[in-house]
């Protein structure tokens, strides 16, 4: 659970202040690097954390005055409904964070292994 909540909270706070979407790369990359044991925790944990954040935030925006824009963009993007659009948003976040978390974890393994050999 902590592997999900930590990325969720950190990305939430950073995005609230600095807006940029690529926090969902940078934070999982760093958290992945800090994860010592499990590739699954590094990748799926951060992926799920970001999924929940983006999906949840999208639903919140949709339901708090965003009905019109969400309906229009769903039509523009051929998404069918606001829920599908929110799900797609969450999945994009999940995919990016999953790969970033794994990349961070892999990098640590390579660097630490090389360090041990040398």
């Amino acid at each position, binding site marked *: 659970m902590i592997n999900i909540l930590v990325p969720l909270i950190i990305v939430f706070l950073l995005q*609230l202040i600095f807006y940029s979407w690529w926090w969902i790369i940078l934070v999982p990359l760093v958290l992945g690097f800090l994860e010592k044991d499990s590739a699954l925790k590094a990748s799926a944990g951060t992926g799920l954390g970001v999924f929940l954040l983006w999906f949840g*935030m*999208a639903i919140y925006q949709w339901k708090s*005055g965003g009905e*019109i*824009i969400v309906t229009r963009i769903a039509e523009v993007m051929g998404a069918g409904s606001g829920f599908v659009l929110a799900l797609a948003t969450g999945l994009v976040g999940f995919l990016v964070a999953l*790969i970033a978390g794994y990349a961070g974890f892999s990098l640590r393994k390579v660097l630490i292994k090389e360090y041990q050999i040398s």
Partner: protein
Amino acid sequence: MRLFKTILSFVLLLTLFNLLNNSQGSIPPLGKFLNPFAGFWQNGESLDQIDQVLDVKGLRDEVQVVWDERHVPHIFANTTYDVYFAQGFLTARHRLWQMEFQTHVAAGRVSEIIGEKALEFDKMQRRRGLLMAAETTIQHMDEDTETHLILQAYANGVNTWIESLTPATLPLEYKLLNYEPEVWSTLKTALLLKFMAWDLTGRNSEMDMSIIQATLGEAFVNAYYPQHTPLTDPVIPSGKPWRFEAMTPDSIPPAFVPQFVQDLRKGEPDEDNGSNNWAVSGEKTASGFPMLANDPHLGLKLPSIWYEVQLTTPDMNVYGVSMPGAPAVIVGFNRDVAWGVTNAASDVLDWFEIEFKDTSYSEYLYSGEWIKSDMRIEEIFIRDGDTVLDSFPITRFGPLVYFGDSNLDNGHPVGLAMRWSAHDPSNEMLAVRNMNLATDRKTFYTAIEDFEAPGQNFVMIARDGDIAIRHNGKYPLRGQDQGKFVRAGRDTIGEWQDWIPYEQLPAISNPWSGFVSSANQNPVGKNYPYYLGWDYDDYERGSRINDRLEKLSKIKFGDMQDLHMDNFNTQAELMLPFLLKQIDVDNLSGDMKTIVSDLSGWNYVSDPQEKAAWVYKQWWLRLEKAIWNDELNIFGEIRKIPTRSVTARLLLKKRNLVYYDDIDTPEQEGRAEIINRAFKQTMVELTEALGPYGEAWELGRARGTDINHLLSVKGLGRTGLFTGGGQGIVNATKKTHGPSWRMLVEMGDHPRAKGIFPGGQSGNPGSPYYDNAVNDWVAGKYYDIHFLDATDIDANSKLSLTRLRNYQ
């Protein structure tokens, strides 16, 4: 293996970053766009989002803004500076992307946003001299202290709004196209005004007319392209005597056959940009007060073309529609006068063929000598591409818009230069400001003298009972038909050297008929001593409005609304009974007989559910083609065909005419043959397109109206609207074009007004005010306009109020 996996995951991550951070063709950068903290999710708005207090840096005093139920801001300020600052601030709040994008279009800077595909468009905009004209104009405007203050106040207001934006609050379109707004400048307002002038400059038929004259002869042109078309009831009644000594041009250029053929009509503004306006005196109204109606016909888009606003200071209280990007009210009313506009449609743009010494284009032939041209170099920035430099010469006859693709027999290159009245500096901003302040006909006329381009028919009413119309603008002094053809730009003959004196322009006030009107038809009859142009709208709308106004008495708003929404097809009334008589009904089968029966029973009213309206329209178009498209297919293009009224007169009067014959068939066709053939062709083609005769053939379904988003993004427009009306009909609603603002005003002790435009106040597709008026506009409904004064703020607790507080 681990190293490989690491590299692979980073490659994948970088690829994803690149895909999601950058636009992919027309797909926005999905990472940014879907980001729920700053992407489109943040562009939602709800009805109750009105701030009670806003701290605004740059105001000189507190400004109060009352929002009515349609989100129209009624701005109450203590100074001229603050009222225009607030107008800029609030317009940007609602329409920033639209106003900036339109200035990019005007300036030929679209490539900066969408890349190389807009390069040719940008080049053409620059060569037409829109940017050049705006630069000259803003210098001229800045010389006037009041204009400078207004423009700068507005720009400061816009910039204050821009500075307040965050990545989350950026308008949606910036997110879709992945760019950011730049600082607003007064030049941008000048660009918008020039763009409006261009959009309303009308038709570029000179090359077609030159080609037709050279191929089919002068007699053909004189017979079928007359200056005064049949049945036209001019804006200023023909009987009006002109009591002045008219100037005469020094010389009239001789006929000239251009050596360089270029299709000038491609990319010209929509030929249906027009409008209706009229005013009736108190003697014809139920209230005894004069009344005014106006509906400018323009391309219909979302965000809406107009932004409704009330501007109030201690010395001004004006209400109406503004152009997003320009201060003040363009069409509207104050306590003393109301006004409306239609496009004058007189000719203010001529084309000249220029002979150059060589391909450096640095010298051109003028009065037997080679004289230097000014070379203008335009720098066009391309998104994700190299900057392009485009240079073209500026001549005495205007900028060279088209370069010839081959040389003259003497080896000299040629090109086509465009002389346009809007190239000259003018101050329409001051005109509009003074219109907003006008107190009677005299002060209104003084104000519009500065409104040089575009030429407009200004109709006005005043509280003192005056009604008036003026064919306003700056028109070159030319000989008969001078602007009808491409001319040789080789010497002073044909060169614009003077202007028609302002006081001699067509105008009339308080006529005995009790009304004035215009609908883009010829402004004058044959007795007016100046040549203003020839390519005006046909007679139908003007004639119908005048017929109706003549008959109406005790007029109320409802009568004016009915006339705005009048779907009567005058042209069908004239022609359909005659055409039906020519139809060989015995040789028709099935549906065709039913359709003839429906056409016979049609009352000529083009309501949306009317199938006959669409069938007749399509039949007429095919008939026109059958008559003209063979003769006028010259050099691979169908050249300009005669107007509907000319074709109608021929059909009614001539049983046999050489042009009826289809030159591609061995037999000799006569009138009845082409009418029958066009009818059958219409039936076959409509059946193919719409299926068997039925609901799909109704005007509102077969044509209807689409109001697309400015970027034509599907889902952001309103399409398939069930509308009636059409070309040549007072309700000039068409597929993508039509009444962009319907306004009615009664000028009593306290003005009363109604209005509607097909959209809403907000430019944000996520706002309930983006398209809230569309359905009511389709239904022909109007909204009551609230013309407030300061006492209303305290008296009406239901009004939503925002205080714009000075914040340093």
